[in-house]
């Protein structure tokens, strides 16, 4: 069975500090991978997607970057956090352009 694991579960970080969020998918080769962000009480906004290792497409510019160093790994990062980065970050996967499945998310609070 496919599993998607996100880490950490929650983070409290200072403005200006770096951030790295991770996502691992097991049980499927060459999945499409996605990062989403959700403000408190808001909808989900797609940030990045990746179709293959080493390739990442940006959907929305939020002073964040993403990388796919391995087929089953997707990393979201920034060198300097802003207050506006607070929210809920969700990683997701799909096979080609079919049903999308989400991880349990990382809740980020920037103070």
């Amino acid at each position, binding site marked *: 069975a496919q599993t998607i694991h996100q880490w950490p579960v929650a983070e409290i970080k200072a403005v200006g500090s770096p951030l790295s969020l991770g996502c691992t998918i097991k049980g499927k080769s060459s999945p499409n991978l996605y990062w989403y962000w959700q403000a408190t009480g808001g909808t989900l906004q797609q940030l990045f997607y990746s179709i293959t290792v080493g390739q990442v497409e940006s959907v929305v510019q939020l002073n964040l970057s993403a990388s796919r160093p391995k087929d089953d790994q997707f990393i979201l990062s920034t060198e300097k956090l802003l207050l506006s980065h607070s929210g809920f970050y*969700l990683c997701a996967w799909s096979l080609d352009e079919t049903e999308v*499945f989400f991880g349990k998310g990382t809740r980020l609070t920037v103070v």
Partner: protein
Amino acid sequence: GDQVEQSPSALSLHEGTGSALRCNFTTTMRAVQWFQQNSRGSLINLFYLASGTKENGRLKSTFNSKESYSTLHIRDAQLEDSGTYFCAAGNYKYVFGAGTRLKVIA
């Protein structure tokens, strides 16, 4: 860009009653998904439709790609149905609706 208009934004139902949620799309979408987001933030997959109607227990969803809309019907609502429901559609750029906050009241 592609837009997804979801309604209503909020809904209160008494246990045992039902209602429908709707999403309208401004462009032709290949498929639609419906999710329930629980209080912990987890997104639960409810339906994935490329066309037609699917039913699962007390939930039923329809996708009309020609007329660019999808509906989610809830019948015999239970307390555990409370949460936020999202529709989403697109290809690699998956667009979500704004969500419907459902509260089921005893």
